[in-house]
């Protein structure tokens, strides 16, 4: 428990620490230093931020903008231009359905419809309980597997509506039964490792 406090204080000492004292900002700071606070590294930093936090919150964008000494409107404009950046907290579980030409022909729309009915959520949105995010993608490049979807990071091919609903339900049930929750577990691990490296570097 002591370690995060030390880091938080250190981050606060140089005047750039986040008021939340969130350790994850250490990873952002590391990426910023590696980029030598170069303004044209904005997109790379945004990628790191999204990897670490899962989405880009307004606070995070302000933090990055200040660190790079960029106008807030520029940071916001760049971030919102690219579809790869998201601005809402994703659910614990996700399903991205390909709606490209091949998948469309093979009935991807039925899968989207079935999942959005099953979980009462529109494509591109997260359920009210924050458990599940349903998104669509234009083409995942695996047209031979059409219709294809990525369920919690795993590519599933030759799906139909029933199989997709079942697969999502299985993942949701698995994390509901396990106390730790499959989606929340890897996060502390991922953060602990680079933060240690950052500490040595300074």
């Amino acid at each position, binding site marked *: 428990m002591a370690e995060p406090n030390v880091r938080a204080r250190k981050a606060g000492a140089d005047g750039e620490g986040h008021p939340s004292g969130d350790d994850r900002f250490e990873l952002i700071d590391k990426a910023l230093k590696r980029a030598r606070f170069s303004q044209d590294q904005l997109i790379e930093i945004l990628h790191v931020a999204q990897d670490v936090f899962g989405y880009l919150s307004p606070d995070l964008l302000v933090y990055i903008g200040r660190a790079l000494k960029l*106008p807030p*409107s520029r940071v916001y*404009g760049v971030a919102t231009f690219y579809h790869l950046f998201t601005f809402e907290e994703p659910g614990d579980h996700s399903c991205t359905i390909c709606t490209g030409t091949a998948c469309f022909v093979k009935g991807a729309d039925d899968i989207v419809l079935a999942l959005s009915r099953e979980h009462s959520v529109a494509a591109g949105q997260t359920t009210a309980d924050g458990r599940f995010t349903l998104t669509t993608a234009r083409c995942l490049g695996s047209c031979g597997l059409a219709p294809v979807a990525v369920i919690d990071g795993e590519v599933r091919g030759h799906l139909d509506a029933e199989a997709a609903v079942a697969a999502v339900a299985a993942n949701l049930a698995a994390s509901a039964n396990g106390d730790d929750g499959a989606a929340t577990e890897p996060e502390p691990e991922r953060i602990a490792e680079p933060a240690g490296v950052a500490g040595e570097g300074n």
Partner: protein
Amino acid sequence: MSPRNGRPNVPVTIDGQDVKAFEGESILELARRVGVPIPTLCHLEGLSIHGGCRLCLVDTGDHKLKPACATEVTAELDVTTTNAEIREHRRRIVELLFAEGNHICAFCVSSGSCELQDLATEHHVDHIHYELGYERHDVDASHPKYVLDRDRCVLCTRCVRVCDEVEGAHVWDVAMRGNEARIVAGMDIPWGESSACTWCGKCVVVCPTGALSFKGRATGEMRHDPELVAFLARARDEGEWIDRRAEA
């Protein structure tokens, strides 16, 4: 825009007229210098080139039309600034701009001082053949002196550029993309809450439409003054303050 040293020595043909261009001069600069009209919307003397509105498309004998503002002259270039194809393109561009915004002149603060309105008149746009796309955006009246009506914005980015390049505040930028694209202040905050805005009003005077206006103006009462930027650029870069009203 920038001062040219020496004499123009690049031979160019523009609408059948043999002229000499400066090296590095854009087709638009040359055309304006020799008195050949080319319509523009996003271009504004004194600001960087945006090349977004595509109204200045000209035929250079290449396989595709080129934006005159962003295309440098080359020796022996043969430019056609207007023909039936180009006129049709321009008319459609103006129509599309009308279709995607709230450009009802009869209710617009800038009627009579609007470059989009002038372009529509010039290109005989009396019908919109496309589905109307507004209203999509909101109005930001949070600033004490100015109003931003995003549905009247044509995304020429003059305000973005003048705020960044002349005032240096960079309050504005374009957020989102495609149909959702819109001008935002800061981190998409109300304009009136922007700590960077100096209230200088340059974005308002350069706006080609009724998107940016002085607060409290009624229909047709807004008057823009985009030439202010050329005056400022000349004053800043050359140290020459030319009284624009005396000149006119």
